[in-house]
């Protein structure tokens, strides 16, 4: 009698636990590159400490990165990026949160390449903007990875470029991301 009383709650507990734990994949070493091309110079920066999580059960994705983790070829450029443009002391992070329809094969983690449309909100320099982009997800024997490219208009995020360097910094910056996920426990 006592046992049967406990049976239902326990089952529920197990179900809720498994629903939440399943289908989530995380990386702490995601790579994000941004590329700015202007008449005077091209600027490239890499961040190899990007956090990202994808939930295949719900079709959700999130990205979180520290702006100070971007590495430039020139240290002075890195200082200017953080101090003058991104104001990393005030706005240390950039984030993205989005949704996508999960193809059945991807949900089952069948081997293959899946192109999905991700829509969500990107936050840079404390300014949130909607973002819609295509992302390519790949499953290779249980290993999930993701790649995407999109453009960010610098002006959209209240980042001002002074006239004297207008020929050095592009108005639209190309962002390339690649993530190799692991099962999130």
């Amino acid at each position, binding site marked *: 009698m006592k046992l049967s*009383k406990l049976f*239902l*709650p*326990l089952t*529920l*507990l197990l179900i*809720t*636990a498994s629903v*939440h*734990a399943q289908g989530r994949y*995380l990386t*702490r070493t995601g790579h994000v590159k941004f590329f700015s091309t202007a008449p005077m110079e091209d600027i490239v920066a890499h961040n190899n400490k990007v*956090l*990202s*999580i994808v*939930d295949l059960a719900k079709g*959700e*994705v*999130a*990205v*979180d990165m*520290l702006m*100070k*983790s971007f590495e430039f070829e*020139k*240290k*002075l450029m890195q*200082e*200017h990026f*953080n*101090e*003058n443009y991104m*104001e*990393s*002391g*005030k706005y*240390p992070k950039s*984030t993205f*949160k989005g949704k996508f329809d999960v193809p059945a094969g991807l949900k089952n983690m069948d081997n293959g390449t899946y192109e999905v449309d991700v829509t969500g909100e990107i936050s840079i320099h404390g300014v949130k903007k909607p973002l819609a982009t295509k992302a390519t997800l790949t499953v290779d024997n249980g290993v999930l990875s993701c790649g995407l490219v999109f453009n960010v208009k610098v002006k959209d995020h209240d980042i*001002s470029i*002074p006239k*004297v*360097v207008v020929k*050095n910094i592009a108005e639209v910056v190309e962002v390339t991301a690649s993530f190799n996920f692991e099962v999130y426990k």
Partner: protein
Amino acid sequence: MKRITITMLFVLCTTGIYAQDDLLDLLNDEQEESTDYVLATFKGQRLINGHTVVTRKTSELEFLISHRFGRVNSGIKEFFGLDAANVRFSLEYGLTDRITAGIGRNSLQKVYDGFIKYNLLRQSTGKTQMPITVTGLSSIAIRTADSFEFAEDDFNSKVSYTHQLLIARKLNDKVSVQVSPTYVHRNKILENQANDIFAVGLGGRVKLTQRLALNAEYFYRLTDELDNSFNDAIGVGLEIETGGHVFHLNFTNARSMAERAFITETTGDFFNGDIHFGFNISRVF
């Protein structure tokens, strides 16, 4: 009924445990704590005349041109000092992210100088916490112009040394301050002067806009000399920064840009209008 209550409680508990429904909150918790080093305590290696805690990063080369006109109170005949100019050129190179070495030449008294700077501590928050940035500076200056003041003026007489401990803190996004205990040794001096002078430099920078800052600097001499014809060096300036360039528009009672000279041998009286206008122009390659 009871059963339902228990069931509901369990469900609530479990959802409580797995409350990280928002993936961004989850990532925020997953973000590992890192050391956050303070950026740009000062923009240049000089504040007005004196060094800041800033060093160049590995392989960065800075070309610095500084000059001071004559005194602004010298009247229209001297075009308010613009007729006279004193220039210092220098090349300053980052051997590592922490060590910078430089060589320079001053037109006044034809002084060649060399320095080495070592960044000991970096202000940071997060995993490693450090309230201040500390940089040590040692410099040597060799006068090559002959002096009429000394009867005997051999090579040794022309050499002087300056050692400084530069201690700075960026208080917030806009304000940085620095204290610089300083020791100057002059090999040869005139009567009533001291070979060894101790001084303390005080400086600050206030950001007015993203590109514009106000700098101020004061060197207080601790050593008393019988010869009291010298004054403490005072300077105020505007700093404009554009990409790899930093421009300073300075107003100071010091005429020279060599440590020995402006710390121990400033003759102008700032409050009497003995002010030299001048620029520092820095370009980093």
